[in-house]
């Protein structure tokens, strides 16, 4: 049994893990004890990260839709067909009619290639890297680098931890573990969140509110709007770390919060630990192009790499249906791939090299431990070939060459903040504030997790959560299937009733439902 | 060393539909040596494989000495049982076993037998009934009570008629909800106790069925004066390996697949976790 050290492909922590390989197969995983992030631990996603590798439904061969059916073809034919399709769209419309969507699980090398394909090959800026960061155009540079940017080890050294958001143990377990252990050992912790989760218990103070941004904004505006219970420990502390998981608030609130955090971080002794959601979200953020509203009527073709936008919303699915040319590279036949004209098989994290940038900015190497199945290829190999065929010059053909190109790349300038008309943040139903668990929704739709045996077994249901008094008011009982209807759509989930959630708050995993929601029992 | 995880190839000889979602399969081993020497006792179970889909534990539904094959009665509930239902005579499945312990009935010789079955709990009891009827004279009075939700859910309709027609046992049936074909009693199976006179000191009671039914049956049996070790039932648990290794069916220190699935009420009461 050999061990190959690599990085977990799931959340932004970037835990070091060993793939256990025997006779050419990845038979398991174990944490790296000496790795500075994992330190011998892994969450459930990490421990099960090898289980999707040998699933029989892995895509193995390139396919093209001929007469309505996906048909196996050699790579060369698929690439030719693909390039022809894209060129045709470019001629009939413009390059801007072609969009590129890439997941936060792609490596830095793959993202760089996509960026070059977009700007030098197709001349389009209809690009979205890592849907989990959608809408986040501006992150203050101070949070990414420099004395105000916290790293994981700053948690131990702080005398005050302020945690904004719930569910860290689910979305960022490694960070939650550090925070928990620091609070166990006496560090003061303030949790500002709608739900009494794991970290709320050992915290010195839990401010249970629907939207943490409102409390934090109060802290900035001369402390006037801030409760004494928060103000006092804040002022008393000499070193503070503010922890905020990106994407845990609705978009507009998040943008306001980031602004508030910027002014708080200006105070002496204060650092901000921003948690990027996916394994390479930070890398994706760095590579991003400024992009207009995506998915508008001008979009005619789309290249999707390891993302599944058909699951985002009915509107998205509709848009994909209407495209003249859709190309997908992925590990499994996703809902998006089922609509595609070209489907290409992708290698998984365990089957390729490349780098991920974790939430702290630590660049870490993936090491291939096993061969991909069939004719599946790493994203970088396919994208390098595609780039060349689209006329992009000086594209490396090996991973080393690509990496070299990356170090030569200019730092991406941080685009100026877009000024937008403030959209009224609609509150939920007249008596319930709707708190969407956006990160929960992200994990629920994750393609790799949906094909991970233990994850599927343990996450058979989606849940909405509410207080017992609210459940009574709506006539709902624990365990019932509930239909949640909003302006943008509806979904089914099981009702979890607990007093972890404050009265008047409804937590749902559904990302895109903002505004008033209706609840009724589903039969 | 035998490989306890390797199934024996077994052919489906016959399929009989019992209800809308339940079928009985007659299985015969491919290997003639195994076919000849395979033995089991009522209460035991086999692990049945539909290769490519998975494996499920199913209790024997036929009497122990039918030689040439055995029967299982299966309700379609999960992916494996649904796949099994799609198979036809001539198809092959895998069988491992027999596993588990048996209904104690040798020790009941000379005494009376009371059997209370509900719904899909009748199949393992049928194995017991066939075994007892093969030695009818060794036992005292035999009473069989069978309850289902509706008349459509009754399994073994021909056997039920045959048993009723024997004259040397008492068979009473009831349904929770009748229909226009049903002329028998309506009510839960415990309502049939009114028609039963059993001497608890010389009767062994065996009961199988949905957990809720078992709970009420045992309550009534205790009220009737049955001692805790004269009430025999089966415990259900998610089982995987069937041989006490994978850990899934463990309740307290017991493995349902090795120490059960047959337990007396006294043993069930003694378990540190609820059944």
């Amino acid at each position: 049994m050999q061990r190959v050290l690599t990085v977990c492909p799931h959340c932004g922590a970037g835990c070091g893990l060993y793939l256990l390989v025997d006779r050419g197969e990845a038979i398991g995983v174990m944490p790296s004890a000496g790795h500075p992030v994992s330190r011998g631990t892994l969450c459930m996603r990490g421990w099960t990260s090898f289980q999707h590798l040998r699933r029989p439904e892995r895509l193995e061969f390139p396919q093209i839709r001929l007469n309505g059916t996906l048909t196996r073809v050699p790579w060369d034919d698929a690439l030719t067909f693909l390039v022809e399709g894209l060129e045709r769209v470019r001629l009939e419309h413009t390059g801007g009619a072609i969009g590129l969507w890439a997941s936060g699980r792609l490596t830095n090398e793959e993202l760089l290639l996509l960026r070059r394909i977009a700007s030098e090959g197709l001349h389009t800026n209809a690009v979205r890297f890592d849907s989990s960061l959608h809408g986040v155009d501006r992150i203050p540079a101070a949070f990414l680098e420099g004395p105000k940017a916290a790293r994981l080890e700053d948690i131990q050294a702080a005398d005050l931890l302020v945690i904004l958001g719930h569910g860290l143990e689910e979305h960022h377990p490694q960070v939650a573990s550090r925070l928990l252990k620091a609070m166990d050992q006496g560090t003061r912790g303030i949790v500002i969140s709608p739900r009494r989760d794991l970290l709320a218990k050992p915290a010195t103070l839990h401010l249970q509110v629907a939207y943490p941004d409102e409390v934090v904004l109060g802290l900035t505006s001369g402390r006037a709007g801030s409760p004494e219970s928060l103000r006092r420990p804040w002022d008393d502390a000499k070193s503070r770390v503010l922890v905020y998981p990106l994407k845990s608030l609705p978009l507009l609130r998040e943008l306001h919060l980031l602004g508030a955090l910027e002014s708080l971080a200006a105070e002496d002794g204060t650092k901000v630990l921003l948690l990027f959601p996916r394994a390479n979200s930070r890398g994706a953020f760095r590579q991003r192009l400024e992009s207009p509203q995506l998915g508008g009527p001008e979009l005619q073709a789309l290249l999707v790499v390891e993302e599944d936008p058909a699951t985002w919303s009915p509107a998205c699915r509709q848009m994909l249906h209407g495209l003249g040319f859709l190309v997908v590279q992925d590990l499994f036949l996703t809902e998006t791939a089922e609509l595609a004209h070209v489907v290409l098989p992708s290698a998984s994290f365990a089957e390729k090299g490349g780098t991920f940038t974790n939430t702290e900015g630590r660049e870490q190497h993936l090491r291939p431990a096993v061969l991909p199945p069939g004719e599946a290829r790493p994203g970088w190999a396919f994208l390098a070939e595609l780039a060349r065929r689209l006329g992009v010059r000086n594209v490396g053909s090996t991973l080393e060459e690509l990496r070299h190109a990356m170090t030569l790349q200019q730092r991406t300038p941080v685009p100026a903040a877009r000024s937008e008309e403030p959209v009224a943040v609609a509150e939920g139903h007249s008596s319930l504030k709707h708190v969407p668990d956006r990160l929960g929704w992200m994990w629920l739709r994750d393609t790799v997790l949906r094909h991970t045996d233990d994850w599927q077994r343990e996450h058979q249901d989606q849940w909405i959560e509410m207080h017992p008094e609210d459940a009574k008011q709506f006539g709902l009982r624990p365990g019932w299937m509930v239909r949640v209807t909003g302006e943008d759509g509806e979904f089914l989930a099981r009702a979890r009733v607990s007093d972890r959630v404050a009265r008047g708050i409804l937590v749902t995993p559904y990302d895109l439902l903002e505004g008033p929601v209706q609840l009724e029992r589903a039969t | 060393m035998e490989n306890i995880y390797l199934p024996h190839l077994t052919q489906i000889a016959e399929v009989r539909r019992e209800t809308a979602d339940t079928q009985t399969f007659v299985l015969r081993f491919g290997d003639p040596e195994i076919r000849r020497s395979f033995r089991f006792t009522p209460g035991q179970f086999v692990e049945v494989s539909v290769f490519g889909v998975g494996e499920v534990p199913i209790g024997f539904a036929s009497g122990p000495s039918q030689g040439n094959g055995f029967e299982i009665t299966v309700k379609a509930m999960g992916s494996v049982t649904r796949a099994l239902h799609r198979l036809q005579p001539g198809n092959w499945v895998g069988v491992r076993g027999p596993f588990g312990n048996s209904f104690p009935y040798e020790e009941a010789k000379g005494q009376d037998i009371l059997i209370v079955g509900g719904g899909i709990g009748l199949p393992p009891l049928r194995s017991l009934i066939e075994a007892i009827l093969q030695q009818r004279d060794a036992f005292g009075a035999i009473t069989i009570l069978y309850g289902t939700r509706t008349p459509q859910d009754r399994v073994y309709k021909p056997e039920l008629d045959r048993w009723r027609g024997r004259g040397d046992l008492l068979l009473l049936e009831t349904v929770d909800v009748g229909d226009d074909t049903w002329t028998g009693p309506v009510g839960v199976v415990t309502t049939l106790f009114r028609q039963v006179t059993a001497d608890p000191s010389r009767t062994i009671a065996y009961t199988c069925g949905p957990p809720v039914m078992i709970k009420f049956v045992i309550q009534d049996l205790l009220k009737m004066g049955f001692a805790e070790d004269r009430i025999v039932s089966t415990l259900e648990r998610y089982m995987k390996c069937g041989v006490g290794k994978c850990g899934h069916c463990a309740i307290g220190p017991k493995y349902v697949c090795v120490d059960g699935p047959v337990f007396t009420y006294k043993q069930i009461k003694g378990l540190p976790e609820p059944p």
Partner: protein
Amino acid sequence: MDASTIAGRVQVIQKDAVPPWVAAMMAQASVIGPHQDPDGDPQLSSLSSADELDLAYTHDLLPPTRHLLPPTEVLFRFQGGDGLRLIPEYDERRRIFFGIRSCDVKGIRYQEQFFRRDFPDIYFLTRLENATLVSLACPAPPLPTCFCPCCDGGPVLKPGEGHDIQLTPLQGRYLVEVDSETGASLVARAPELFRDATSADLAEREEMLSEIDQRFSTTAYLSRGISKVTNDAVPEEVWEELAERCIHCGGCAYLCPFCTCFTVSDRSRDGQQGERFRRWDHCILAGFTREASGHNPRDRKCEQFKRRFFHKLSYQYMQREGRPGCVGCGRCLTTCMTAVDMAAVLMRFRELGRKPKWGPPWAAKPKTSP
């Protein structure tokens, strides 16, 4: 000098003679020994040369039992079409485990007892039959997370505990105690590297043994924990408080030398051919007991969490296998993300009645006097 005259004798090998001895072993079998990974984790792995041997090794986070019961393994392949065939796969590779700890030997022997009981598990036992165990006693805890003495987990093995050879480190050399014919034949590969132990050697070992109590943590919290659990004397609120922290990562089970649970699945592309394989599983996951109907007899987190500890400290181990289900190897302490590992839980039981004070027990201040 034949094997039978060597068995039972206590001998000595110089430290620098160990690599040539290992090289002699490698001619016949794969030696899985301590080796420092260039990336930093100490581990036991198949040596490609005796020079890789790292005798300053502490312990491997992955217990050696996982070489005998791997995280996933194929039980058999099936092939349909014209006549269904089942093709089992057995792993008969010969392995010499060199430098495993006493706690690891106990884990392997416990698993042997478990897998032999009732229905022998041919997969595990085939690997075990082809495995030789050369253990390394611990004069001091290799890691601050070790707590084996209070769990009957080590740090030194007595004759008959299931090792083939036990090495005890002394100054510049190792004491070599052969405990089986297989062990004797390993020594016989390079008999010139060994000499008989003298009374001075044995005296040095005695001195080392007498210091063990001081060097290892002497808190006997395991036995108290066992009695609290067996007598059901832990209040439900304490179980709830502990279970709430658990995030179901599974690490404690995957890394435990005494954990053996697994689940079995089939995989097939086309329904005609495929494999049945088993993979590790653990009782803290909710789906462990969920039935096809959806009913789950243990559907509360608290019950799942409780089950693990009752199983290890009472049911399975005390009632069935005759010893506690923990050897104090400390792996769960390293891997638990929320400090509800075995030691933390046992410490919590000790504090019953007092306000809970979390924190790793091994971070406690050292004792000032013996």
